[in-house]
């Protein structure tokens, strides 16, 4: 668990709003240099990390988790020094007011999303403000701000990782850094001699804005099999059980029209045979993951989807249980060491 925690901190402390994944390059290289044979970057901002099994004509297994997170971008610097912004990805704007953010200008500056007190809100205290009603307050004057911030600079939730009781951690960006962490830890633990595939890990870009990064990386790799990992809704107060998976029950294997039937069935069989804890969720016609792009990239790829349960998606306090990350790592290890999936 200590390795998982360390990796999670290394990943989550990096700003990687969709389109700006390249800023995390140094951290990714430091984290992964000893684990992989080769690390490459591509124009979309994705990282391709290769770990070879050193067997001749080994099939290629792609394992994807996305690095990018939802965030914002500066659209204007207002006359009183406030910043207007547009969302990048499906930001949960209901919880934005009074949120702490970092504006990535020439330097990183602290910002606070404005919040009109309920007493003064014309639309009523219960209504949720749209993003265009919100601004970022930095404390700077317009003149000072213009020296630091340009239109088009990205904005992210302020990094803060908190360990909770019961093995839970909460911070922004766990979608999908929890899974990236699981993949890296699996690759750290695995014995190369047991590998049955040349492994191509894609720590991919721009999932939150159209799922394009992994599909482009996959096009270049042309894998035989692709395992897509992403977070999925965790059940809890107010969320319907039938659309969710449970925290602490391990990662899930998703069953969907978009995932390969045999590959998925073989993975479930393998996990049952080895007694590895997991759960199943049905995602009938869409998975809303990178599987949708990888599936149809190039000449098409056999894909399976693994999910980690996550609470409070797309908010500053996304929450996962470390056990479920460990479970994902175990499942990935089992898959990478099994022939003929």
């Amino acid at each position, binding site marked *: 668990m200590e390795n998982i925690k360390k990796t999670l901190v290394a990943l989550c402390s990096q700003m990687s709003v969709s389109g700006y994944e390249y800023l995390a390059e140094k951290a990714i290289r430091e984290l992964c240099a000893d684990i992989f044979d080769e690390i490459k970057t591509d124009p979309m901002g994705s990282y391709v990390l290769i770990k070879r099994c050193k067997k001749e004509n080994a099939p290629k297994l792609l394992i994807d988790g996305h690095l990018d997170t939802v965030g914002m971008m500066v659209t204007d*610097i207002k006359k009183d020094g406030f910043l207007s912004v547009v969302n990048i990805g499906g930001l949960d704007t209901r919880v934005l007011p009074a949120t702490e953010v970092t504006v990535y200008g020439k330097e990183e500056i602290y910002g606070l999303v404005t919040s009109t007190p309920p007493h003064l809100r014309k639309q009523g205290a219960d209504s949720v403000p749209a993003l265009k009603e919100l601004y970022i307050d930095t404390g700077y004057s317009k003149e000072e701000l213009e020296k630091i911030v340009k239109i088009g600079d990205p904005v992210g939730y302020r990094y803060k990782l908190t360990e909770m009781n019961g093995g839970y951690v909460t911070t922004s960006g766990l979608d999908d850094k929890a899974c990236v962490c699981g993949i890296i830890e699996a690759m750290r633990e695995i014995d190369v001699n047991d590998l049955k595939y040349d492994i191509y890990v894609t720590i991919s870009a721009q999932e939150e804005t159209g799922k394009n990064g992994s599909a482009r990386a996959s096009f270049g790799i042309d894998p035989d099999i692709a395992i897509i990992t992403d977070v999925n809704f965790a059940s809890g107060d107010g969320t319907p059980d039938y659309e969710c998976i449970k925290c602490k029950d391990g990662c899930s294997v998703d069953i969907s029209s978009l995932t390969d039937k045999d590959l998925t069935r073989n993975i479930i069989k393998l996990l049952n045979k080895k007694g590895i804890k997991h759960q199943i969720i049905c995602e009938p016609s869409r998975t809303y993951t990178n599987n949708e792009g990888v599936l149809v990239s190039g000449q098409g790829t056999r894909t399976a989807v693994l999910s980690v349960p996550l609470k409070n998606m797309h908010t500053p306090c996304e929450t996962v249980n470390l056990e479920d990350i460990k479970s994902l790592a175990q499942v990935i290890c089992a898959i990478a060491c099994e022939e003929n999936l």
Partner: protein
Amino acid sequence: MVELLKRLMLASGASGREDKIRQAIIKEVEPYADEITTDNVGNLIVRKKGEGKKIMFCAHMDEIGFFASYIDESGYIKVSGIGGINPVSCAFSEVVSENGVYGVIVPESSKEMPKLDNMYIDIGAKNKKQAEKSVKIGDYFVCVPKMRKLLGTKYVGRPFDDRVGCAILVEAIKQIKEAKNDLYFVFSTQEEVGGRGSKPVSYSIMPDIGIALDVTGTGDKPGASPMAVKLGGGCTIKIKDAGVICSPTLVNKMREIADENKIKYQNEVLLYGGTDASSIQVAGTGAYVSAISIPSAFIHSGVEMIDMADVKEAVKLTVLLANKL
């Protein structure tokens, strides 16, 4: 430049019907190109060969318009829209068909907000039989092209979207004497119906860098959606639109080159609408992309407005990027 732009604007071509504008561009660039080809979806690819990076510049040839979909007994022509037609801005406009038949597009009622379903083209025919002699189902119409100078360096007319991008590329092709990079100037088809032409051509070229040239919105007219781009404030360097987040490293490099050469530019974040950059970015293994845009008010209307001063900056920046990227 104004005369070139006018020539390109007069060669109409709705999406998927770009023959006339393609011919017009070929005529302009022929003496300056190393190679001119077209592909299966009608894209025009003009090359200036060089040793360095593969750079694809892309401006779309097509414009929005209408297909004649039905001719009623009285000779009135119902239409279906090609691309992002705004019924309010095209109601009561003069139109012209691919065969040079003139008419007007009008709503059935002038009291309600017009909808394309309730609009028709009147070519002056007395009945269906006479109309059918001039117009067949499937013929396309566009609003009549025109261009007029206003005060200063401002111009109104149509279709600046995206003949102004085409004109900038034609001018750049003429100005670039020796290509240091391997340059592909693509005049794309079917942008207005989903950036379709630029997809296959990006796959066949697989550029390292893709730069689109297109119009963008402005925020400085009364009632305009908030946007920090001004007409006459310089060309823009695109950072984001509804379809693409441009590659930050390329954007930074473009700004650096623009700053060094005193190009007047604005940083563009466009909330609604997109351009060919999004298609180029996701072709093959992906490309570094951004766009140079021309601020334009009243886009997709008969009175699109641009400032030629912005166009000049865009030409300068395009020529610089071609050799300095």
